[in-house]
């Protein structure tokens, strides 16, 4: 939008009106699209101002249309916001029709200021900001219609609603929506709303990384909403007194095969089943849940929880065949010949990355990779506790391994990580919990050689590291310090330095893969080089998060449906909408009211000394009282965006 005629975005006013286009003052790149879904953007109005690129746009009509969209989300929990917007709309409607009165501009100013300063949450104030901008900077547009002059031709509009939390979530869940339902004690409806974009609320309510919380507006005020805990609350309280099978069953569409019963595969199967497809999931493991099952220890996710969650999906008619491995028990070709019309591959990243130090691959007892270790424990394999264990790595797998070792009875559990605490990729709260439970973390060190005696491991020779320049990941690169070698005794060493997809089932390369050893798909549609095969989750992205896998499963299900229905995949407005807000900061609006600080409600936790005695779940569910109190902290930062567009390119 280099040719911006006017902008009040974020309070920075750029006014080029009356100048020849050649004389337009330069406008910083505001991150607004010139094109949106094939349309030329003429003007943009949202919570932080007004941007005009075409001086023929009717700003009064735009303000009126914008406020109409805003009203749909105005909750009614405070009279100033709800009634104020209602009356502003009445006034704008008559002004836009040329029937306004002399006092109308004054009334609009009074209403706007009152809403901005005295509404209860963050939503209605944000809603009036751009309207006040039109009053302040396009006053003549108001006076003309009030004086009864002819109005301009109306624009074509497009709207989009988002919120900082929704935008941060890969699955774009309506977070303020379900929090509001919890606040109003409508737990069942809250759960139903969550399920629309996330079919695994029990799982994500416990083990999601919660990007939403990182982007919560309250970060700038006190502390973010406990969104993950609220989701778990809705998942637990929303099913009370109702049967989960109330979901509508539709039948009559073709057979679709899904490889992998993890989050991506489950999300795809859930959506496809709801659309009427006959879905069969094949999984090589002996239990359902994929990486969520074998990668997450029971103290974070009790095993029966996942089983119950998968049951809801099975009730939709989804069949799950376990102990069935692609490439061993089934092949892609055989699935097609058995009548499956499309296949979604979601096999995860279950292969521990090779650790390349002296003696690692020589077959000594006591060396294991982290994912395999967790898988063994989670599938119930008996493991003998040792005296001392070293875990190498700083991610969540390393932390999970360490906390699991404590619970298995290992006496001395040490994590060795080559960078410092700030660079540690593991979730901060997990790292803290591990330390509280007794895990030691050795920062700025890495093993260089496994020390052995006979066929057994007796320790690791390590070297100290220091941090150099930032590398491609943006983190400072660890550099070994010469002559700083030291020995850590150990009976077992777990390597948790990363995971990769196991694509060994792809004999003969039926579909294209990437140099990184992942499956290649078309962006947004998840379609592979073979059009009737789709893929998503960790096997496409490399090790990522549960919610990214769910988002991929959701979208891939739509792709499968589109492909099987029409033979081609159309990127909908829903897909491209995301790009609109990608570059625009959704952080706090300018000049809102004062927001009182309030204490974040935390779920009860087992005391660290009790935790290590068993695999019992560490974190409890929020109580109803705490959940409602927490939900009351939500500032409801919905952001409505209105674009005036022209059809030509």
């Amino acid at each position: 939008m280099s040719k911006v005629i006017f902008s009040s975005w974020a309070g920075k006013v750029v006014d080029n009106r009356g100048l020849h286009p050649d004389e337009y003052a330069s406008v910083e790149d505001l991150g607004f699209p010139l094109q949106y879904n094939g349309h030329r953007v003429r003007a943009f109005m949202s919570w932080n101002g007004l941007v005009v690129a075409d001086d023929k746009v009717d700003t009064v009509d735009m303000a009126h249309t914008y406020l109409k969209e805003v009203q749909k989300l105005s909750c009614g929990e405070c009279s100033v916001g709800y009634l104020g917007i209602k009356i502003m709309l009445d006034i704008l409607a008559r002004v836009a029709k040329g029937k306004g009165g002399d006092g109308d501009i004054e009334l609009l100013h009074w209403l706007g200021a009152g809403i901005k300063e005295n509404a209860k949450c963050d939503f209605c104030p944000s809603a009036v900001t751009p309207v006040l901008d039109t009053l302040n900077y396009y006053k003549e547009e108001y006076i003309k219609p009030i004086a009864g002059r002819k109005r301009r031709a109306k624009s074509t509009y497009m709207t989009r609603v988002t919120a900082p939390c929704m935008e941060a979530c890969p699955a774009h869940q309506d977070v303020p929506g379900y929090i509001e339902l919890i606040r109003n004690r409508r737990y069942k409806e809250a759960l139903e709303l969550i399920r629309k974009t996330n079919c695994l609320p029990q799982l994500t309510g416990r083990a999601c990384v919660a990007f939403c919380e990182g982007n919560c507006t309250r970060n700038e005020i006190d502390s973010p909403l406990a969104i993950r805990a609220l989701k778990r609350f809705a998942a637990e309280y929303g099913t009370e007194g109702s049967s989960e099978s109330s979901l509508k069953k539709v039948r009559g569409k073709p057979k679709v095969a899904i490889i992998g019963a993890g989050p991506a595969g489950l999300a795809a199967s859930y959506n496809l089943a709801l659309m009427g497809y006959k879905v069969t999931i094949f999984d090589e493991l002996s239990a359902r849940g994929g990486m969520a099952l074998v990668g997450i220890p029971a103290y974070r996710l009790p095993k029966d929880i996942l089983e119950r969650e998968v049951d809801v999906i099975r009730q939709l008619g989804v069949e799950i065949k376990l102990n069935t491995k692609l490439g061993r028990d089934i092949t892609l070709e055989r699935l097609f010949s058995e009548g499956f019309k499309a296949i979604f591959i979601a096999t995860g990243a279950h292969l521990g990355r090779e650790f390349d130090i002296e003696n690692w691959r020589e077959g000594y007892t006591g060396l294991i990779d982290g994912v395999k270790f967790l898988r063994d424990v989670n599938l119930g394999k008996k493991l003998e506790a040792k005296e001392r264990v070293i875990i190498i790595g700083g991610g969540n797998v390393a932390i999970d391994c360490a906390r699991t070792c404590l619970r298995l009875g290992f006496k001395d559990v040490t994590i060795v990580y080559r960078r410092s605490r700030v660079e540690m990729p593991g979730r901060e709260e997990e790292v803290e919990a591990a330390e509280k439970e007794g895990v030691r973390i050795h920062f700025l060190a890495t093993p260089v050689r496994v020390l052995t005696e006979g066929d057994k491991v007796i320790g690791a020779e390590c070297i100290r590291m220091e941090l150099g320049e930032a590398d491609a990941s943006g983190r400072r690169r660890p550099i070994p310090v010469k002559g700083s070698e030291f020995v850590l005794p150990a009976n077992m060493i777990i390597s948790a330095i990363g995971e990769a997809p196991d694509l060994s089932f792809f004999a003969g390369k039926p579909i294209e893969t990437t140099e990184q050893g992942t499956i290649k798909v078309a962006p947004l549609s998840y379609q592979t080089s073979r059009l009737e095969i789709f893929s998503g989750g960790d096997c496409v992205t490399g090790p990522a998060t549960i919610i990214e896998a769910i988002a991929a499963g959701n979208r891939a299900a739509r792709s499968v449906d589109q492909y099987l229905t029409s033979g081609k995949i159309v990127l909908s407005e829903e897909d491209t909408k995301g790009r609109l807000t990608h570059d625009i900061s959704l952080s706090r609006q300018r000049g809102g009211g004062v927001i009182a600080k309030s204490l974040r409600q935390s779920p009860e936790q087992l005391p660290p000394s009790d935790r290590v005695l068993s695999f019992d779940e560490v974190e409890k569910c929020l109580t109803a009282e705490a959940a409602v109190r927490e939900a009351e902290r939500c500032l409801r930062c919905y952001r409505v965006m209105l674009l005036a567009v022209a059809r030509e390119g």
Partner: protein
Amino acid sequence: MSKVLPGNATGGSQRRVKLMVRLTIDNQIVDAEEGSTILDAASKIGIYIPTLCYHESLTPGGSCRLCVVEIIANGTSGLITACTCLVETGLEVRTNSERVVKSRRLAVELLLAQHPHSDRLQELTKKMGIDKPSFTLKEQECILCELCVRTCREIVGVGAINFIAQGIDRDINEPSIEVSPVKCIGCDSCAYICPTNAITVEDVGDTRILTTPDGKLEFKLKKCSTCGKYWAPEKQLDYIIKKADLASDAFDNCPNCRD
């Protein structure tokens, strides 16, 4: 900030001492208990701040916005509701600045526009020198103050009244309250607390009729086994018997006929 002081020698337990917080309201210095609100502190020194959705026995809701005040702290000022804002040391509060008066006037005029015939609202606006609202709205008795919602939850303990709010793709024309006929025990606390008579109650013969914005609900009344008077909804009495673990015949007689 609260401090934890060591307990006395004999008890050994720790005692939490409420600290006092010093702030200024309308240029008067006030010492208020930590954890109390600006509204509490102002009323202690006799400063009147209008309220509508506030009730001392209920959690503040902040929905009517009438108790708006201006606060100045750390060099910035802003408006906030006195019923929800906790006192803080050094806080400067203005309950009647021009900014406050303008904002409060808007809040009350909006409510009056919603329900121009409410005695309570007329009384409030008269005090503020307002005859009639600057706007017109379709008249509606329920002004969504949520007093009934909070009373039913917090005092009665039933939670039969809930709020329906708007949201993305939620097909709701207007926000409103919803009364669950299953949960409601017909106790009439909501009608008692309602400031605008949007909820009313009437006993006709053996039936109690509760009229709410969400519709009419009927409850069978219990007959006193001695005097024969219909005196309370059976559902309410059953609720009390269950909650207080009383004998099933505890309410066979009305209060007048009990020994």
